[in-house]
């Protein structure tokens, strides 16, 4: 991949709303080239989507809980962990699934409206799957940082004085 494409991906990963005109100036290419580059990266599935990082805890009246679940499974001959992973990641309440090294196999991130809802998902859907051996559910109490963004950072003012030599 070209150096400029990597730079573009890094810029968009940090700020998906950066407009093409600004990007073109930053990377010293034309806006048309930026558009084409983005289209190409989308087609190649290097860019899968664009989303906002929302701090739901600051949204009035919003209620929701999130949990990380350690899942131990029995891998299936021929398809390894992939098949069981796909059984799990298709549930809409599942936000992320990773295959892990270490003492368990899959790390599953789940979101729901209440603890009850998440618990029900784990006991009724997840742990009843054939190949799932055990689950350990950790509820998230507070998000400090997500995808490189620090939540709740009240004091991000420029601390420099106005004009310096």
């Amino acid at each position: 991949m070209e150096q400029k494409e990597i730079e573009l991906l890094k810029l968009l990963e940090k700020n998906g709303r950066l407009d093409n005109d600004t990007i073109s100036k930053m990377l010293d290419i034309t806006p048309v080239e930026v558009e084409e580059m983005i289209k190409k990266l989308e087609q190649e599935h290097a860019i899968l989507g664009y989303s906002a990082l929302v701090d739901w805890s600051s949204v009035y009246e919003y209620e929701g809980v999130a949990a990380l679940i350690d899942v131990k499974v029995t891998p299936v001959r021929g398809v390894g962990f992939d098949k069981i992973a796909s059984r799990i990641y298709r549930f809409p309440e599942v936000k992320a699934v990773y295959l892990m090294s270490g003492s368990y196999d899959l790390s599953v991130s789940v979101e729901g409206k209440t603890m009850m809802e998440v618990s029900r998902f784990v006991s009724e859907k997840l742990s009843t799957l054939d190949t799932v051996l055990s689950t350990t559910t950790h509820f998230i109490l507070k998000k400090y940082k997500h995808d490189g963004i620090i939540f709740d950072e009240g004091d991000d003012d420029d601390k420099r004085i106005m004009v310096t030599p």
Partner: protein
Amino acid sequence: MSKSYLAEHVKGLQPSGIRKFFDLASKMDNVISLGVGEPDFVTPWNVIEASYHSLEQGYTAYTANAGLLELREEISKYLEETFSVSYNPEDQILVTVGASQAIDVALRTIVNRGDEVIVVEPCFVSYGPAIELAGGVPVSVSATAENEFKVTPQQIESAITPKTKAIVICSPNNPTGAVLSKEELTAIATVVEKHDLVVLSDEIYAELAYDGPATSFASIEGMKEHTIVLSGFSKSFAMTGWRLGFATGPTEIMQAMTKIHQYTIMCAPTMAQHGALEALRNGNDSVREMKTSYQQRRNFVVKALNEMGLSCHLPGGAFYVFPSIKATGYSSEEFAQKLLEEERVAVVPGHVFGESGEGYIRCSYATSIKQLDEAMKRISRFVKQNSKV
């Protein structure tokens, strides 16, 4: 009027032109400042954390006068790897309170009363006054826009008199961003050799060169014995407030500098030295990341300025652009003042960096792209409304 207690040579010292803009800008709201000569990044966390740790461990006493030997060893390694110049950590490296103190102590070490020191303008505002305070006489040579603000050997040669002792060179340059190539430095070296000058090479922005690595003047053949390299951690590692720099040079000069440093400063702050140690050992990735970001902003700002009719060459380094504002018919000072009043954007008028800076302004792009975008919109509107062409 009562008698003044000020020393004669201090009375004559001119206040920095930057000060005035600071006073003006700091009284206004909603100002976007492109007048800041320092990174917008906070120091990399691993550096801050290492300094915390050193404090927790009780490293709160003085260090050796020249700085922690461990740190000097790292500096030596770093200079060797980055610029292919080797200095002995035992007696050729001095850790200072910022590159600013390094400049001051270097000048006091080599300047006799009345010696002339050539200064290439436009330049950092402190050189001239520091030379005067050391008892020397600053002699200006003007690098011009026609030559992309690069000084030529002929210009230097024409300023040399029997009293010339030294020359101060800064590449990559504050305020113009100009970077002197190895060939250009080699040409200057011929003049230095011929007239047996000392070179004070301010290399504080050496890490921030965008078209290939910057060349250290000390790495030019035969120049190590003539050169005092002045550098530090402020710009490359985003550590301005830590006040930590260093100087390297021939043993005799460095030993004399260390003597002055010992009597006046004792040693650079210990906790900052521990931070710097971590910066050199594990700070490379952070530097690279910041550099990429500066480079993108440089491209953005240069394009935006040229589009609005403020002609601006693409500078090779540092984090400044130095566009011409001559098309507006204003002087640098008028432009900067009106821009601040009408559009709330602070820039530094070029003339404060020397006569040849007149007709230009310095914009620092060490500011978020969002802020830069807004600043460029404001400047563009200002130029449209004020253009006399």
